[in-house]
């Protein structure tokens, strides 16, 4: 009998609470900006936060209020920006498509580990212990923190380093923020020449650490007809404002850290290993 009363009391109070909440939500509903719903529907809804707002809902609310750029949604790209501009009736804005890029080519054949790590299996934890066990202190650790945060499964770990499938990459920058070595950068989608190294040690030390490292020999700097490459801190840096994608530097590079890559439409069965050949 006792359990029945308890049941009835809980049930009735919960029901009452539910009904009260329903009544309140009807009585005190606040009219939303009708634009907000339309805008929210054309946003992708994966809440990646690349726009700088808390999520798609938040960005939609800010857009409906006005005064916010429509080209902030990275995964939605140009199409979303155009649709939002149409809904708001304002001028269209250009979207620059970006993809993530791992500036390291230190795969298992090129570099080695100097110690054995048996701790927590994340890049962050590994990097906190003397900067990781890699011979090269700048390179990819290969525990896949970036792959874990990637919302679109665009990152795979192969041969000890992270590879990004640029056809899947949304450009949300989550991996860029996550990488403890800060070797993931965002490149424009029309980029075709990249420096696959982040090591700014002197040539001999860099070469000792990894066969594929940039040794800062300045050959590319001299070769480039457009003056787009400069060696800063023993590391070649490409100025993409000047780079014409001619690829002359790629054939000159003695260690092969300068690469020609083809963004964005790699076939799904693309062999990433061929990049490092």
């Amino acid at each position, binding site marked *: 009998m006792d359990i029945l*009363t*308890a049941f009835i009391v*809980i049930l009735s109070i*919960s029901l009452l*609470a539910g009904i009260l*909440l329903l009544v*309140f*939500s009807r009585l*005190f509903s*606040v009219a939303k900006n009708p634009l907000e719903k339309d805008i929210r529907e054309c946003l992708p809804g994966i809440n990646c936060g690349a726009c700088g707002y808390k999520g798609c809902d938040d960005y939609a609310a800010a857009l409906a209020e006005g005064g916010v750029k429509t080209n902030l949604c990275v995964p939605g790209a140009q199409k979303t920006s155009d649709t939002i501009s149409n809904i708001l009736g304002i001028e269209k804005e250009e979207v620059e498509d970006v993809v993530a890029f791992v500036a390291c080519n230190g795969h298992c054949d090129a570099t080695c580990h100097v110690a054995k790590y048996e701790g927590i299996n994340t890049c962050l934890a590994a990097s906190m212990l003397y900067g990781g066990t890699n011979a090269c202190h700048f390179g990819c650790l290969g525990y896949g923190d970036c792959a874990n945060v990637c919302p679109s499964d665009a990152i795979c770990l192969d041969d000890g380093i992270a590879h990004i499938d640029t056809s899947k990459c949304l450009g949300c920058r989550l991996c860029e923020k996550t990488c403890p070595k800060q070797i993931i950068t965002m490149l424009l989608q029309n980029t075709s020449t990249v420096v696959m190294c982040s090591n700014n040690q002197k040539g001999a030390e860099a070469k000792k650490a990894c066969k594929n490292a940039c040794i800062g020999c300045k050959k590319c700097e001299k070769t480039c007809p457009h003056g787009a490459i400069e060696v800063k801190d023993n590391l070649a840096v490409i100025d993409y404002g000047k780079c014409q994608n001619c690829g002359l530097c790629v054939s000159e590079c003695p260690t092969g850290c300068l690469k020609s890559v083809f963004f964005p439409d790699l076939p799904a069965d693309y062999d990433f290993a061929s990049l490092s050949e």
Partner: protein
Amino acid sequence: MEELRLLIVILLSAVFVDNYVLCRFLGICPFLGVSKKLNQSVGMGVAVTLVMLIATAVTWPIQCYVLDTLGLGYLQNILFILIIATLVQMLEMLLKKLSPSLYKGLGVYLPLITTNCAVLGVTINNIIDGYSFVESMVSSLGCGLGFLLAMVLFSGIRSRINEANIPTPFRGLAVTLIAASFISLAFMGFGGIIENIFA
């Protein structure tokens, strides 16, 4: 007169002697999480005070007239949690409609209070202490004000900690916890004062 004296004792001892954050260690989460800036901590403190008052006003009659009469005292925890959550939701809707500026000011703190143990603690302790309805309300007000006081004090200290040159191992949460324990120690010093003033 005697009654008024009792109410003042309840109020002041709830603020100082039995401060929920610093002496009973309830509601530590917002105490550490939302005390970075003064205006935020004031917002949180006011919101908690408001919710404590409303929660007590509803839970006390339910305990006295429903649970006690039916002998279902053991349902106290689960029912109080349910009631507090509902009340906070209702308050949120009301504020959103009636005072959007206050709603925006309180922001995320209002929904956070839904699961604040200090609020549940006040409602349950009022029953345990055997307070009457008026005494319960005064005690809730005192607890809320005590929470507000602790938040304001601590936000002041934290803003100074931010500017101080702290040894590396203590930076961040470590020094915050140490500072919190010092304030807590200081508040322990209020023990017995209120009762003796009004004795």
